[in-house]
Structures are given as structure tokens and as C-alpha cells.
């Protein structure tokens, strides 16, 4: 087991959205813009890393009967912390992500990783795993957010900088509305499936 491949695995095969198909709610709800996508991913990454490390540290102490409640308490603690911190120091981001910050608690990725990885592996690898998964989450969220924002508003504006703007006028407003989220992720998944099937048929 080497750390780098564990990290990459989180982005590719075990990609939380495209591979494991977990944590869809935030992936769709907050990706109206790249900025929100990044904000959400960072918050999630914080919780993921902290809880993975914490749980793998304590993994020998946690009685299996109440494993789940304890995981949840740990995760909820970190979520509450990031929620309060964001509310205090980046209020606009907090407002934009709304209810989905507290909902990180129930993001299936985090509890899933705690269950499937952190409770079985040592601290270092749990840390790397969390980083990899978080990176995978970030990439997909930014991709979805980017597609939706550029098509939906004609430009990508993040943290005050206009990163990209298209001469599409008027923009496809539907893309930043709920249907746009489903459509984007549906098409992304179809493309990924298509490529995977093609690769497999060629023996990849």
C-alpha cells in the first residue's frame, strides 16, 4: 500500500460522486457556482480529514456496539465547528451554502469512509485516504459547478475574479436551477460510463 496510490484512488476509482455515488445532495445542491463548490468541498474536506484521523486514532477504543453513534458524534462535532467558524468569518459563503453545511453530518461519504476505512486503518493512511476522497469530491464539484455556472450565467466568477466568460447571451438559466444539476451530473456520468465501457472492451 503506498500513500500516493491511495490518494489517487480517492479521485479515480473510489471517487465519491462518480465512483461510490455518495454525497449527492451537496454535490447537486450547492454547485450553482464554482465558488460555492469550492466552499462546500473545503468544509467537507475539513470534516472528512478531522474525523478520519480522529476515528482511526480512537479505533481501538471504540466499542463496536455503539460504533455508529460515536462516529456520528465525532463527525457532528467537527461539522458544528466548521459551521460556526464559517458563519463568523465567511458569512457570505455560509449564507450561500445554507442548510447544506449542517448536512455535511449526514454526507454519506464521511460516515462511509469512517466505517469502511478509518475504523480499519492507521492514522496516516486514514489521513491520506481522506485527502484523496476530498480531492475527488472537490474536483467533481468544481466540474459540475463550473459547467452549471458557465452555461447558466455565461461566466465563472469566483472570489471576486472573473475566471471565464462566454459570449453566450442570454445564458441557459435552467442550468443553475435544480433541473440543471440533475442534467449535468447525468451527462457527466453517462460520459464516464461510455469511456469506461469502451476501455473495458479494449481490455483496459
Amino acid at each position, binding site marked *: 500500500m503506498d500513500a500516493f496510490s491511495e490518494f489517487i484512488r480517492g479521485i479515480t476509482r473510489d471517487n465519491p460522486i462518480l465512483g461510490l455515488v455518495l454525497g449527492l445532495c451537496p454535490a447537486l445542491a450547492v454547485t450553482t457556482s464554482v465558488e460555492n463548490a469550492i466552499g462546500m468541498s473545503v468544509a467537507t474536506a475539513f470534516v472528512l480529514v478531522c474525523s478520519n484521523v480522529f476515528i482511526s486514532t480512537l479505533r481501538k477504543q471504540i466499542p463496536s456496539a455503539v460504533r455508529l453513534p460515536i462516529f456520528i458524534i465525532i463527525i457532528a462535532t467537527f461539522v458544528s465547528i466548521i459551521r460556526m467558524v464559517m458563519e463568523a468569518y465567511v458569512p457570505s459563503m455560509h449564507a450561500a451554502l445554507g442548510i447544506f453545511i449542517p448536512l455535511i453530518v449526514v454526507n454519506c461519504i464521511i460516515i462511509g469512509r469512517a466505517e469502511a476505512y478509518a475504523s480499519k486503518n492507521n492514522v496516516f493512511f486514514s489521513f491520506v485516504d481522506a485527502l484523496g476522497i476530498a480531492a475527488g469530491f472537490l474536483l467533481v464539484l468544481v466540474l459540475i459547478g463550473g459547467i452549471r455556472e458557465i452555461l447558466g450565467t455565461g461566466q465563472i466568477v469566483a472570489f471576486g475574479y472573473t475566471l471565464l466568460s462566454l459570449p453566450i447571451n*442570454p445564458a441557459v438559466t*435552467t*442550468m443553475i*436551477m435544480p*433541473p440543471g444539476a440533475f442534467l449535468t451530473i447525468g451527462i457527466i456520468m453517462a460520459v464516464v460510463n461510455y469511456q469506461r465501457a469502451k476501455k473495458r472492451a479494449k481490455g483496459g
Partner: protein
Amino acid sequence: MDYTISAPPHIKSKFSFRSINRAKILALIPVSLASVYFFGIPALEIILVAVLAAVATEYGIQRIFKKKVTIMDGHAALIGLMFALLTPPEAPIWIPIFGAFFAITIGKHAFGGIGSYVFNPVLVSWVFVRSAWGGFMTPMSIPNLGQLSDLVLENGAGLLVDVSPILLLGGVYLIYKKYIEWRVPLVFALTVFFFNQTVAFFSAVMSLIQEGVLNPLMYLATMFIFLEVTDELSYVMVGIVFFGILFLATDTPTSPVTKNGRLIYGFACGLLVSIYGYFGNYVDGTLYGIFLANAIAAYIETKTLPAMFGHESLLESSYRRIMKRIPSSLKFEVISDE
């Protein structure tokens, strides 16, 4: 290789997917011509461009994914034409192009092509375009008409199809000729009719109450409102509603296959369209309403499957009770040569 063998039956009906599509296109030609006459060149442009875009998209997709090219079955052209008819004449020319493209790609082929789609591709595309570029899809212009009554030549704001409800009645002929199934449009139309007449009836009763009328005969007399063309009903007598009833709701892949299911589906269409029309307008209402009905069609179907062994639904048992009264020799009607 002298002879051909195949399983019986060795003859088949004259209806084919192709002839049905062609019949529908033919039935839409009159209203298309009328819209070109009244809206002028923009309407012609929209129709041509949408049909071409639809056919070209279909061709492209089938070539790219190495499927059999089926542009000759008329389905793509029909989708293009239907989208065009749902476009306002002043829409920029890229709207019908995008609409036809979206209908064929996402609406039709992403779901698997002919018969596999769950939502009417025309509606998928129209609703998407409407919610993306609401401003361009809102009908503005009023065709310049003479003194003809509304039913013959629509005197309101319009999409291309709104030009004349009467010219859409080719659809009724297609029902008569069995190109189109009758249950959905009939129940749909009846529901819309009774919904609006009932609304008119209640508002009449309410106004009597407000006026303090006590004479019960006066209340009874309001029943006659069902025989009138009330204001509420006149809002419905527009091209788009006729089009929805005859051409959109009757798209077979998006309606249930069971007989009872089709009746319920027609009712659902009528209700959803009327409710929206009551609060909003009938242009959006017809299209959104049928689109939403598409979404529940599958559920209606699962709930109306033929009864399981030994069980009978309420609907079926009453149906059977009625059937009992009918001479048994009529029940197994002989297949005639059409």
C-alpha cells in the same frame, strides 16, 4: 432458400410507425400553412429550421453511435414540426434550432429512441427552453385577423399553433381513422370542459349568494351554464389546448398502455392543465400540465395492470358487471379486415 418461414400471423395491419407519423404530419400541415399566412416569413423560417434541425440531429446521432438511420420514418420531422408550432413567431431563429436539437438528443435518444422515452421529447425541449429563456418563449404578437370568430381564427396572443383551433381538427379525423387512440383525448377534453364549466357554475352560484337571491329556481337555472360557452370555456378554446389534447397527450410512449390507465391519464392531463390554466394561463398550462402527466403515466400504469390471479380491482369488477348485460356474442368481436 425457396420459401420464407415466419411465425403466424402471416398478414399484418396496414398501420405502421411510419404511416402514423406521416398522418400526424399531414394533419399538422393546415395549421402550419395558416401560421405562415398570418405570421409571415418568420413562421416559415421557424418551421423549416426546426424540421431541418431535428432531422439533421437525428441523422448525426445515428451516424455517430453507429445505429440504423431512421430519418425516413418521419418521427424526427414530426418532433421538429411540433416544436416549431410551439414557438412564438418573434423568437430568434436559434430557439427552434436549439429546441429541435435538444428534443432529439436529450428528449429522444438519451432515453433510447423511438418508444423508449418516458417524456414527450417536444415537451422536454419546450419546457427546458421556456425555463432557460423565458422571455423569448412568451407569446407576444397577435396575428392580424379579420372578423372571424375565435374558434376559426384565434384572436389572441399566440404561438404558431394558436392561429386556428379549427385547423387542428385533422387530429379528430386521425382518431376516427384509428391513427390516434381515442381514450386519452376524449377523457382529456371532457375533463377540461367540465372543470371549466364547473368553475363557471360555482362562480355563478357564488354571485347569486352575494346578491342575496333566495329563489331556489334561480339556483337551479344556473345549471344551464353547462350548456353555454362560458368565459372560462372560451379561454380553453385556443389552438394550444387542442394541440395538447390531440397531438401531445396522445404521444403513445408517454401514456400508459393499459386501457383503464389511459382513461386515468387523460383525466390527469385534463385536471393538471385546467388547474394551471385556472391560476395561470393555458399556454404554459397545457404544456406543463401534460409534461407533469407524463411523469405520472408510469405510475398510473403500474397501478392499472390486469388484476392478479383471483383478484379484481373495483374498476374491473364494475366493468365486468356492465359487460354482463351486454350480449355475450358481441364480446368476442370478429376481427374484420380493418
